[in-house]
C-alpha cells in the first residue's frame, strides 16, 4: 500500500469508527430517553449515524480492506481509530441493568460531536477523493436536522432552571475534557493532508470553535477556556477499557460464527 492509500484508509477508519461507536452509544439509550417522543427521535438519528458508518465501512470494503461487517466487528480495540469522546459510556451501569444515564451528557456530547462532524463533512466537500465529496453532501442533509434537534435541547436545558442549566454546563465541561481528540488525524496526519483528502486539523478546530461558541453563547453557555491534551489518542489506537466492552457487546452474536449468514 502506498502512502496515499494508507492515508485514505486511515481517514476512512476515523470517519467510520467515530460514527459507529457513537451510534452504538445512542442505541444503548433506546427505550430510556427522557420521554417517548425523544426516544423515537434519538433512535432515528442514531440510525442515520450508524448508516453513515456503514457507508464509510463499505468504502473501505471497496478499497480491499475487508468486508464491512468484519471491519466493524472483528478488529481489535487498538485497530479502532475513533476519538475517545465517542466511546465514553452514557453514564454508569449497563444498558440492561441499572443504567444511570446522563441526558445532559448525551445532549452535550452529541451536539458538540455533530457540530464537529458538520465541519469535517464541509471540509470533505473539497476532498481530492471524489467518493468522499459525494457522500458528504448526502450526510449533511441529514445532519442539518440533527443539529436543529440538539440546538433545541440545548435551548430547553439552558433555559430550564438552575439545576438543568448547571447539569448542562457541567456536561459541556466533561465533553471538553475529550474534545481535543477529535481534532487529530493521528500518526498519518501529514500524509492525509498532503494527499488533499481534507483540510488540516487546526483549520477544522478553528471552524468548530467558532460554531460551538456561537451556538452555546446564544443560550448563555460557554466552552471552557482551554482543552486538556487527550488522555488517549484514539486516532493512534489508544483507547479506554470501555471500548473493549463496547466491541465485545456489539460483536457478541457475529463472533459466534463470522462465517455464517446472519
Amino acid at each position, binding site marked *: 500500500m502506498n502512502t496515499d492509500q494508507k492515508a485514505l484508509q486511515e481517514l476512512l477508519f476515523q470517519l467510520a469508527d467515530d460514527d459507529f461507536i457513537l451510534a452504538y452509544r445512542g442505541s444503548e439509550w433506546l*427505550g430510556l*430517553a427522557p420521554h*417517548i417522543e425523544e426516544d423515537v427521535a434519538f433512535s432515528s438519528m442514531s*440510525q442515520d449515524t450508524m448508516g453513515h458508518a*456503514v457507508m464509510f465501512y463499505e468504502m473501505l470494503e471497496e478499497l480491499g480492506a475487508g468486508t464491512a461487517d468484519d471491519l466493524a466487528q472483528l478488529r481489535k480495540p487498538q485497530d479502532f481509530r475513533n476519538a475517545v469522546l465517542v466511546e465514553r459510556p452514557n453514564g454508569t451501569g449497563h444498558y440492561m441493568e441499572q443504567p444511570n444515564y446522563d441526558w445532559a451528557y448525551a445532549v452535550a456530547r452529541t451536539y458538540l460531536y455533530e457540530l464537529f462532524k458538520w465541519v469535517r463533512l464541509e471540509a470533505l466537500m473539497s476532498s481530492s477523493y471524489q467518493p468522499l465529496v459525494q457522500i458528504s453532501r448526502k450526510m449533511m442533509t441529514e445532519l442539518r436536522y440533527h443539529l436543529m434537534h440538539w440546538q433545541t435541547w440545548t435551548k*430547553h436545558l439552558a433555559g430550564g432552571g438552575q439545576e438543568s442549566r448547571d447539569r448542562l454546563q457541567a456536561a459541556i465541561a466533561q465533553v471538553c475534557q475529550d474534545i481535543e481528540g477529535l481534532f487529530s488525524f493521528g500518526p498519518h496526519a501529514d500524509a492525509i493532508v498532503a494527499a488533499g483528502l481534507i483540510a488540516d486539523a487546526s483549520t477544522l478546530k478553528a471552524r468548530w470553535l467558532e460554531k460551538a461558541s456561537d451556538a452555546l453563547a446564544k443560550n448563555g453557555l460557554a466552552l471552557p477556556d482551554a482543552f486538556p491534551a487527550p488522555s488517549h489518542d484514539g486516532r493512534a489506537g489508544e483507547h479506554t477499557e470501555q471500548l473493549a466492552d463496547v466491541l465485545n457487546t456489539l460483536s457478541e*452474536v457475529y463472533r459466534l460464527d463470522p462465517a455464517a449468514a446472519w
Partner: protein
Amino acid sequence: MIAQTHDEKLAAFLEKIDNGGKIEADDWMPDDYRTQLIKLISMHGMSEIMGALPEKEWVPKAPTLRRKLAIMAKVQDEMGHGQLLLRVAEDLMAPLGKTREDMLNDLFTGRLKFHNVFHMEAPTWADAGVIGWLVDGAAIITQTMSLDTSYAPYSRALHRICAEEKFHAQHGESIVLALAEGTEQQRRMLQDAVTRWWPALLMFFGPPEGGKISSNQQMNMRYKIRSQTNEELRQVFFDKYVPRIFHLGLTLPDPTIRYDEAAGQWIYQQPDWDEFKQIVSGHGPRSVQRLDLRKLSYQQAQWVRDALLNNTQQAI
C-alpha cells in the same frame, strides 16, 4: 336542540355504531365505553413501549450492520406506536382529568398491565427473530380484528400500526429464515427460541371462553370495539403459523397439536392459565427487571421534565 335523556343518547349511540358509524373523541359516549377504551388502548400503548425492552436487549448486539440498522428502526417503530396510542388514550382520559403521567404511575404500581409476552426472557438473538416473526404476527392478527373498531381515533392509529407491523413480521421472518437455513448452532438457537416462546404465544390471545364469553369481551363486542373472541383469534394464528413453523423443519413443544378437519379447528394443549395470571400481574421471569428499567429511566428524567416545564412556563 332538544335536551336528550341519557337513555336517548345511549340509544342513538348504539344505533350509530350498529350502522357502522364511528365515534370521535369529542362525541358523546357512554361512560363504560370510555372506560373500556381507556383500559384497552392504554394497555396496548404501554405494551408497545414495554415491548421495546426485550428486543432492545438485542439492538446493540445485532449480528450484522444491516441487522443492526433494521432492528433499531423496528424498535423505534414500536416506541412510535406506543406514542401514537398513548395520545389516543390521553384524549379519552382528558375529561376525567388524567394524563400520561397517571398512566405511567399505573404501570409502575401494577394497575396498568402489559402483554404477557413482554414479561418473558429473550436470552438469544433467535428470540429477537421469534419476537418479530411470531409475536408481531400474533399482534397483527388481534389488531387487524380491531381495524374496524367503532372508535375512530383508535381505528386510524391501528391502520398505521398494522401497516408497519407487516414490515416487522417480515423483518422477524428474515432473521428466522437466516437461522433456519444456517448452521447447526443457528438452527438449535432458533428451535430453542420457538420452544421457549410457544406457551407465551398461546397466552397472548387470552384465555379461551369455553362457551362462556367474559363480560369484558361481551361488552367490547357489543360496543364494536372488537369483533372476534380470544379463541377465534388464536385459531387464526394457528392457521397462519403452525404450517410455516413445520415447513421450516421446526417442532413445537406440543405433540398433540393437529388440525381437526371435522371440527374445522386446531386441537392443542392449553398453556398453564394460572401461570398466565401470575405473569400479567407482574410475576413473569423479567417483569420486575423491565418495570425497574422503565421506572429508573422515568425517575432519572425528572429533572428533564422539570426543565421542559420551566420552559413552557416562561413561554407563557
